[in-house]
């Protein structure tokens, strides 16, 4: 397994980048605790995590795509339409389990098409998933849904509803699910063959292919996995607000997802970063959003602050891991 060690660069560099983010998080957290009245309460901290749990789950899906030197911009659209389809089917009287199975199948098919386009047609991932997000949203909206906003009616009180709004020993179920997905993703990436392949591909796709890594099937797997996790995030979202608004497919949410992934130190050039990076990034963004909401900062100003922090993070990243003119990849955007 050591053959697939993530990179030739010394490990302390990544630790350093992650430490910077952890330090910023701690400072921001402490700052808010001191200056804001209702910040440092158990319930607020829980709500802090709960509010970003969905973002975090999406971030986990995105992280494994980015580590393999890809990106999945269709993740939000996929989540929105597949879960909306599930709700619509359930509202039409279908057993909830069957509706979930069909919705999941829809999500996975979209992921599969993504993977095929990237792996076999060789369309750049940015593009394939961008266009696929638009196409998938349009197709499902036109063919399956009769409204932008689909309410959760059937099964609204049973176990299904619990997924997004239940609690285990006082901890919101969405937070628990976030934790479980993070743990599973960690095991997948670090202790399974496909997971190691993803790191190898992210580090150097050509070398990975030369050494016999099944690059194309692994890429397909990544996007199918991403779709599946996104579907789960969507279920959490829908069951917590009792509806699914398909228009989030057109929102900036996917940029927020990239934000939590990149800010924790997962480089867009692939092969770098761990699940811990996503957790750190999620925590920082959660803290910021929570604090700013308590301070009643306008949403637009929040976007600016978030973006500036991301900008600082990638500037620091480029200073810590400078790109070399002689070795950087042509056409790496």
């Amino acid at each position, binding site marked *: 397994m050591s053959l697939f060690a993530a990179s030739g660069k010394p490990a302390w560099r990544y630790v350093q980048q992650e430490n910077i983010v952890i330090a910023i998080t701690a400072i921001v957290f402490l700052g808010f605790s001191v200056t804001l009245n209702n910040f440092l309460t158990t319930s607020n901290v829980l709500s802090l995590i709960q509010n970003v749990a969905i973002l975090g789950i999406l971030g986990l899906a995105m992280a494994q795509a980015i580590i393999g030197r890809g990106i999945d911009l269709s993740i939000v659209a996929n989540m929105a339409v597949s879960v909306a389809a599930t709700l619509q089917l359930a509202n039409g009287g279908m057993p909830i389990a069957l509706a979930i199975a069909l919705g999941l199948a829809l999500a996975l098919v979209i992921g599969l098409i993504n993977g095929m386009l990237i792996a076999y047609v060789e369309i750049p991932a940015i593009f394939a998933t961008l266009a696929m997000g638009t196409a998938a*949203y349009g197709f499902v909206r036109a063919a399956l849904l009769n409204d932008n906003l689909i309410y959760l009616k059937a099964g609204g009180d049973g176990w299904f509803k619990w997924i997004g709004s239940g609690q285990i020993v006082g901890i919101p179920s969405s937070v628990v699910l976030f934790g479980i997905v993070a743990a599973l993703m960690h095991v997948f990436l670090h202790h399974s063959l496909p997971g190691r392949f993803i790191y190898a591909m992210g580090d150097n796709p050509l070398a990975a292919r030369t050494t016999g890594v099944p690059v194309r099937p692994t890429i397909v797997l990544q996007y199918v996995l991403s779709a599946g996790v996104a579907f789960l995030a969507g279920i959490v979202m829908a069951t917590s607000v009792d509806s699914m608004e398909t228009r989030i497919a057109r929102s900036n949410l996917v940029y927020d997802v990239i934000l939590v992934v990149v800010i924790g130190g997962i480089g867009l*050039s692939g092969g770098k970063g761990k699940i811990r990076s996503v957790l750190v990034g999620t925590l920082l963004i959660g803290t910021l959003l929570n604090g700013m909401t308590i301070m009643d900062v306008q949403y*637009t*100003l929040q976007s600016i602050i978030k973006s500036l922090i991301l900008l600082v993070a*990638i*500037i620091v990243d480029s200073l810590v891991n400078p790109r070399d*003119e002689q070795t950087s990849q042509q*056409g790496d955007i």
Partner: protein
Amino acid sequence: MLSEFLTRWRYRLVPDHVLGEILSKTWIDNAIPFAILLLTLAVFGTLIPGLVTLTGFAALYAELGELIFVVLGMSLVMLAGGIDLSVGSVFALANFLTLLLFNMLGWPIPVVIALALLCGGLVGLVNGFLVGYLRLRAFLTTLVTLIIVRSIVDMLILAYAVKVANPVATSPIWDFISFDTFHGLPVALIVALVVAAAAHLFLTRLRPGWRILAVGGSRRSAYNAGLPVRRTIATTYVMSGVLAAAGGVFYAARLNAAGSDTGVGLEVLALTAAVLGGNSLGGGRGSVAKALLGAITVLIVSSSLIRLSLPTGATSFALGVVLLAAVAIDVRWVKNRSKLLSRVYVSPTYLKLPPAPSTEAGSASLYAVNDRLHEVELIGLGELDGPEDTILDAADHLYTGSRHGDVVRFIAPDYRRQEIFAHIGGHPLGMAFDSEGNLIVCVAGMGLYKIAPDRVVSKLSDQTNRSLLSVIDDSRMRLADDLDIAPDGRIFFSEATIRFDMSEWMVDALEARGNGRIICYDPRDRSSRTVISKLLFANGICMANDGESFFFAETWGCRISRYWFTGGKAGRREIVIENLPGYPDNINRASDGNYWLALVGMRTPAFDLGLAMPNFRRRMAQRIASDEWLFPNMNTGCVVKFNEAGVIVDCLWDGRGINHPMITSMREHKGYLYLGGVSNNRIGRYRIPGADPDWTGVGSYWGART
């Protein structure tokens, strides 16, 4: 017999080679986006009656102008290898600023426009600084500026939207920009087209434009070549910012609306347009024409989809699918174009040669193999690389070319010492001295060159008249091969093929088409003109002793012809030797009034059969690797001597194939024959029994000089 007749005419009439030549043109890159545009028009024109009319398009003109600005900016950035997602937000910012400054503050329009453009340029500068100088990733960085600028616009809207709504001032300039048209074209579109034309000139004619292409094509090479890579990249973002802002200004003029939705998703639309037009993600490939094609296509698609009144979502679906299809085609095209080109470029044609004369040793054949060249002396063994032709001057020094672009001189009398006489470049092939002692050289890949006795190299000709219907540019000289000089000073030289370069000259044998020609350079007016075209690998040329005609060899045709360029028979062409057993190369005069001819390789029955089976050769060229192709034999050859009637009078072989088997040229000088070979590492020197020991080539042309 009939089938042979049909095959002959099929290959005479159908120009197979044109497909490959079209694919090798650079403009073919625009053909696919153009085809997509036509397809779009066909599809939506059928679905929407009245779309393909002037009024149908007129509604789109103003928007097209705005879109062209944004797509141009995006394309410039993409050409340098980046991407600019912030264009949509910059567009919105410029729109709002324009309205704010004009409607609310009532500033004069020129100032307003200048400030809006400046603002766009500033955002571009931030992008350019971050991406160019700090080397951040373009996608993520411009995504961040997209969000930040969008948020700033939202905050401005929140604060001023109501006040902006009601103009405090009117301005004739503003009304002019907003409403006026020239021949139905709105101001926005006219300005956009002017800017596009300027951008085209910038990219194709100016140094900074070339730098952008160089950086996009290969950033590393550009950096190593000393180009200011970072500044170049930063500049593209500034230009993109200004162009997006220009689009926003015209949008403000058209709608006078400060909506929060302005320009949302414009980056995706612009990206789609740029890629649909054929600009590659990752840089290096693209043009203004491509950007325009893409912008028009995208606008027709998106507006047609709205006009079709499709159910909610169907528009998104169609747009997504069109985007995917376009990128898929683009990606496959870029990846496979060269593959496709190499598959179809070689286009064999029909050539039926009569059975070759026997060369069997000891037979009565004129070409019978002997071993007379076995004893040749070797000059420069192991020091030479590709001495195709040799020549000797009046002082007996020996000159030859090399694959490295040098003309090497061996010093008489023992030819042990050598020096580089001159460096030209390319691969110097055929050589001749003119009446003033200048060495005239045919250089493969470059043309016809002159080396004066003081070693100064000058170009005589590298292009001739372009033939009317040629697809590839046949005015350029690819493979000038051999030359000779008429008594009046005109230089006749052969170009072996117009379809292949020196490195793959043998592939021309697979085609066996008349790709070669003979060109005449006239030193009096320095003009070049094609004299004979469609020759089967035109090769050696030698002036006949009458001074009115020359002999020339067609290598794949295995024949020698004679052409009269002046005198009573001017313009006549006769075949002198019809059916050689091998492939003729250079021809030179012999001391006894006859002519020496080198056969560079000998014919084989298998390849002769293959020449009559063009389909077989095409399948071979398409399906198997080039190093497994069936090529003519080029390992063994001989030297023959023929007289003016075309009768073979002598034949020299290296029968054992050890000392000097491969011969492309020979030059008689003072009783010796000097032998060259295009892939040899030596020059052979053969003592001709009974030859005139004082005869020299230079002397036979220009008379003995003191």
